């Protein structure tokens, strides 16, 4: 036999793929055990649930370095006005609308923004638009509108969707808090979900299944996955 080198390279790649694949199967099965526990902690409403769970056991998360940066309590975002971050880095803002009936999150990068208004039950609206020079002008389906201004690092304005209108002020939040979206097709069902993860770890989300909204199952912020009827489906951070 001649020219064995290339074949050896391919076989080494195959062996490596099998090894990493095997380890991944193990990581995934360990994680699905942890996900159940993490989900319960978040829905139980403990104020530290969001900061406490990501580190558990497996290292597959995207948030290993972030817990220190998470605001320890809902009262601290007052000081969150970061001094002019680099324009091309994404910033996430989140907060309750006045009166607390709904939550709003806005992801901003450069002069583009995507916002999500959600009450965690059935009301939800995605909006997209411009964030040029501190003025936010976003629009969404069915005439949804958002106008707001950046004031000292907070975004203040009003949003209207589905005949309802809300005033709001949202502040900068740090990963794993922020805005997540899931769009997927699982066994013929069209899934479209949005999650707002608040600084205290609380999650507000709605998951549409073939257009029917219902409260979203909890999102595992360390893995980015959501358990939908026993299937693990990945959600993504919203990127304007």
């Amino acid at each position: 036999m001649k020219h064995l080198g290339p074949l050896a390279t391919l076989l080494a790649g195959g062996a490596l793929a099998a090894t990493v694949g095997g380890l991944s199967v193990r990581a995934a099965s360990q994680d699905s055990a942890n996900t159940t526990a993490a989900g319960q902690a978040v829905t139980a409403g403990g104020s530290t649930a969001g900061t406490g769970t990501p580190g558990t056991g497996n290292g597959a998360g995207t948030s290993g370095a972030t817990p220190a940066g998470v605001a320890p309590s809902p009262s601290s975002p007052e000081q969150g006005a970061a001094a002019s971050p680099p324009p091309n880095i994404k910033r996430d803002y989140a907060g309750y609308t006045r009166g607390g009936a709904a939550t709003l999150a806005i992801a901003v990068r450069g002069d583009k923004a995507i916002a999500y208004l959600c009450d965690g039950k059935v009301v939800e609206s995605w909006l997209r638009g411009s964030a040029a020079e501190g003025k936010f002008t976003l629009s969404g389906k069915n005439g949804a509108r958002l106008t707001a201004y950046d004031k000292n690092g907070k975004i203040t304005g009003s949003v209207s969707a589905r005949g309802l209108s809300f005033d709001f002020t949202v502040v900068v939040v740090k990963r794993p808090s922020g805005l997540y979206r899931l769009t997927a097709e699982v066994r013929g069902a069209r899934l479209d979900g949005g999650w707002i993860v608040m600084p205290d770890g609380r999650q507000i989300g709605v998951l549409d299944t073939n257009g029917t909204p219902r409260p979203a199952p909890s999102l595992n912020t360390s893995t980015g996955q959501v358990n939908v009827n026993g299937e693990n489906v990945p959600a993504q951070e919203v990127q304007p």
Partner: protein
Amino acid sequence: MTTTPRAARPGTTGAALLLGPLLVGAAVAIALGVYGRLHTPTGVAVNLAGFSGAQAAKAWLASVSALFAVVQLISALKMYGKLSFLPTPSWIGVVHRWSGRIAFLVAVPVAVHCLYALGFQSAEPRVLIHSLLGCLFFGAFTTKMLALRKDGLPGWSLPLLGGAAFTGLIGLWLTASFWFFSTSGVHL
């Protein structure tokens, strides 16, 4: 497609020799795509210590791979007598072989994570292009490795296959690592 009866006969030369490697490479590309599409993504796979998350680990591994791919391009140009303003060291072949092996082996764990945790996705153009390029790269690489074992190939075959693999890998890097670094910042 025309039939190429000469391919089966040993000792033949020419483009027909590429048929076998091309078929195997195409099968690899299709198998990866079909697996990625049909298997339900887990969202989780094994992670490397020292990185803030799986995405960061993948972005850096893929960058290492892309760097060696650039070494591949330069050493290949050199071996084909281009870049004549540079001296040609006697060990250029060794550099080309080993940079290729490293680029490939470093890319494999990244691809396993992509396939196993995320799958073949088409929700947005970047993700669709990335998924397609992933299939292309491993198909082209397999074809090239198998083609290397044949003598008497047309002169254009290895540059073409190597170019396809290089294009695939750089495209993969642009649609993932570069995107990741430009949206999340450059961090470990």
